[in-house]
Structures are given as C-alpha cells and as structure tokens.
C-alpha cells in the first residue's frame, strides 16, 4: 500500500508531469493527445480487475464485472482510435516541405 504522505507526493509530482507534457504541445496534436490521455487512464482496467478478482458476493461480482467491462472498453477503444489518428499524421510528417 501507498500510505498518506507518500501518496501526496506522488499526486503532486504526477500533477506537474501532466502539466509539463501538455504545455509544449502544438495545437494540431491536441485531439490525438486528448485521445491518447484518454487511453492512458484506461489503466483503470487494472483496478477493475482487482475489484472483480477479489469479489466475494454475487453483488460484488456483478458490479466488478461491469467495472472490468467498462475499463476494457476505455483501454482498448482509446488505443484503437488514437493509433488510427496518429497513423494518418505519418505521411504528412515525411514531407514537411509539402509537395503541393
């Protein structure tokens, strides 16, 4: 377990990290980046797996099942759409001068 004060430091440092990452992003990448960050919080899937994995009663299993279902949707969907978007950016990057 991560206890109180140590967690507070993690919260703070992670907060600054997120701020730093996005403050240098060109506008053209905002949509893919939002999609990418949407994928990253798909890590909630891992938490959902724990919630369902340690469930004991049927009620906990039902709610945990929903958690994993939703978490998997977040992670997989977030990856697929981000990847598709960024793939399209590739050819344009190869010819920054533009071929007209």
């Amino acid at each position: 377990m991560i206890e109180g004060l140590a967690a507070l430091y993690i919260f703070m440092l992670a907060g600054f990290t997120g701020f730093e990452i996005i403050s240098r992003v060109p506008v053209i990448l905002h949509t893919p980046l939002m999609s990418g960050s949407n994928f990253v919080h798909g890590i909630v899937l891992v938490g959902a797996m724990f919630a369902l994995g340690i469930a004991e009663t049927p009620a906990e299993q039902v709610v945990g099942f929903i958690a994993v279902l939703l978490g998997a949707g977040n992670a997989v969907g977030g990856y697929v759409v981000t990847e598709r978007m960024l793939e399209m950016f590739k050819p344009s990057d190869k010819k920054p001068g533009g071929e007209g």
Partner: protein
Amino acid sequence: MELLIQASYFAAAVLFILGLKQMSSPVTARRGIVWAGAGMLLATLVTFVAPEITGSSHANINLILIIIAIAIGGGYAWWSGKKVAMTDMPQMIAMYNGMGGGAAATIAAVELLKATDEVERGLASSIPDALGADVAILGILGAIIGTISFSGSIIAWAKLDGRLHRSKLLPAQHLVNAALALATVGFAISIYFATDLTPIIVFYLLALVLGIFITVPVGGADMPVIISLFNALTGLAVGFEGYVLGNAAMIIAGIVVGSAGSLLTHLMAVAMNRSVANVFFAGVGTDTGAAATGEQGEMKEIQAQDAGIMMSFASQVVIIPGYGMAVAQAQHKIWELTQLLIDRGVSVKFAIHPVAGRMPGHMNVLLAEAGVPYDLIYDMEDINADFKNTTVSLVIGANDVVNPSAKNDSSSPLYGMPILDAMNSDNVIVIKRGRGAGFSGVENPLFFADNTRMLFGDGQKAANELIQAVKEL
C-alpha cells in the same frame, strides 16, 4: 512474484509518461501511443497473476469473469473504434472516456459493498473503519467524479452523434442542478456514516442524474471543452481509485491525465474566449431570442461556375473549412480543387480556427487524412492579418468561427470569441447546405454581407462543381 508485479506497474507508469511525451510531437507521436500501449498490456497481463486475485476465495470463477468482461468490453471497443469515421472521433473519445469514468465509479462501488458487508457482519463499526478514513474519502470522491464523468460523457456522445437534440430539460435548470449537486454531496457525506446500502444507492443515482443534467444544457459548440473536462475528471477519478487500491501506476496515470486534461480544457476554453464555468452555466444557443434575427438583409446566391471563375483569377484564395466540410466528406475534393488552383498560379491557404471541427486539432487530422500538406495550413493568428490581401475566402461548412458578431455585437452569445476575419477579404464565398443558423444556433451576419455570395448545396457536390468549373476554363 510480488516484486515482478510491482516492477511491471512501475515500468507501465514510466511508459505512459514517455508515451504521452512522445505524443506531443508529430514526429514521435505514433511511437508514443505504441509505448503507452505496451505499458498497458504489461500492466494488464501481470494483474492476472497478482496474488490478491489468484489467492482470493473465488479466484477461478472471478478470473473467468474477468476474461469474459475484457472480451466483451474490449471486443466491442475494438470493433467500434476500427469502424468509426474520422469525423465521429470526438464522440467516440467521449464514449470511451465515459466508460473509464464508469469503471472508476464501479471500483469504488465494489469497495463500498465490501465495507458495508463488513459493517453488517459486525467486523467494523463504520465504512471508514473498514476501509480507513483516507481511503473512504478518496474512494467516495472518485465515485462522484467518475459517475458524473460517465453519465455526462454518454450525454456528450449522444449529442455529438445526433441522437439527442434537446438542450432544455427543466425550467430553472441551473437551480435544479445546484440543488442536485448539494444533495449528491450530502449523500456522499452520509455514506461515510452509513451502515447499509440505501444511501450508497441513492448517492450513485443522484450522481448519474447530475452528470446528465449538467451536460444536457451545454451548447454543441462548447462540446469539445466538456469532453476534455470529463477526460480530466476521469483521470482524477482513476487516480483516486488508484489510492484506494494502493496501485501507484493508477495514481500516476490518472493524475497525469487529470492535470494534462485540465490544462487542455483551459486552453480550449481560452481559444473560444469562454471560461469553463461559462460553458456550463451559459449554454450558447439555448436561449437566443429574436434579438439576433430579423435585422439582416438577403443572402445573395452564386452559381458554382461563377464561383470557380472568381477563384481561378484570384491572386489569393483562403479556404476556411469547418465541421460541415468533414460531414460532407468534401476534404478530398477540396484538396483536388486546391491543387488545380495552385497549378493556375493562385496562392491557396487553409485557415484553421483553434476550435474548427469538434476539438482543437480535429480539422488538422481531417485535412491530413485528405493529404493536405502542413505548410498550406495556417493558424488563426498567422492568417488573420492576411485576409485583407485575399481575393476570395472560401468558407465551407464553417459558420460560428467566421461570425463577425463575435467582434461587433455585444448582445451576441458569441461575443468575444476570436474569429477568422474572412469579412476583410475582397470576396467571400460560403458553401452551405441550407439557410439555417450554425451549430450553436446563432445567426451569422457575414452571410448577408455585400461582398458575400452563398453557394448552396452539399459540400462534396459543391466542391465537385467548382472543380469542373475550374477545369473548363
């Protein structure tokens, strides 16, 4: 084993941060998502062998349930994510984001169920006694945020997907929302002292309704801000539930997204000259009265042939694409038209408003898909001074971003929003499906201006006719 699992979570957290960092530059962006994806895969796989799960009393059945849930949820998301059109990307992001918020909220629900069970069996005196006060508070906080993000994102998805059109539910909606928010917080506090499930269930229902009520009045043009905000909120909720579960990877990934998303939300709101609070409490287009209508003259129509001639002999043409162009799938035709004009020696530029499309950068994605090179695309600040040297501004599927009342009509709901100064060019040609108002429901005086000609019709068809007209010369 425990060490391997913790090391894997650590590696996943590093991969997420490096991945996001790489996603912030066009050159490395694609590598970034692959790295983050590798982190996710690693974290998910090692969780299957986590001793908490394999050692639990219902390990076998639970593991099977996990696999089934991942197969259904992941399978659906894979299928829907692969087939969605680029124009519909924003609402899909909203939907996946909502699922993440829902997952965070349901994780909290499982913890609360466990704690209530312990209280009922007399193993603990209260929920904070069972979970620990810090865990209980952050867990409930994550539950509120996650639930609102869930139902709100689903509404955002429904609105952008054209499944929900109403923006008014009740009279005095803001008062109702405020009362509802207070009630939700009240029940959240009562969970802290609860001994049975009733307040927990009421709390979740209230938070669900609150998310719906907050999002329904938000005007369509403000949707990107809302989606971005919900994205940040989901991140926050995930971070809080990460604390509940003692999972550092969840905390780091969640909070990084929470702060990055908050900043992105702020940047978007600034681009539209609206504060985030304004977005929630004003609702553009929901209560525009007769004030904006009626004062205009008449729209002057032009045929594609004449428009084509006008552009062919122009010295400079600026194309202002909006979401309507993407809906009509006209971007490829517009690029073809652009190439023809360039061959004739016309200088052609694309002007992109920061919120063109449904999200910042969405229009760039759509133009990139059509093959338009970057050096023809200009941001608002770079192009606005250039409109006075422009012979023809071609507005296709855009409306609010060229609405001059944002500059000179203080009664307009758009007042103060930075716009593309298309009205400063010698001529403006607007390709538009019909005579109605824009996405935000606000009338556009530019369409009635003396130097504006309207080319009515579907974007792709109009672009085709323009191509023919230019070719025939």
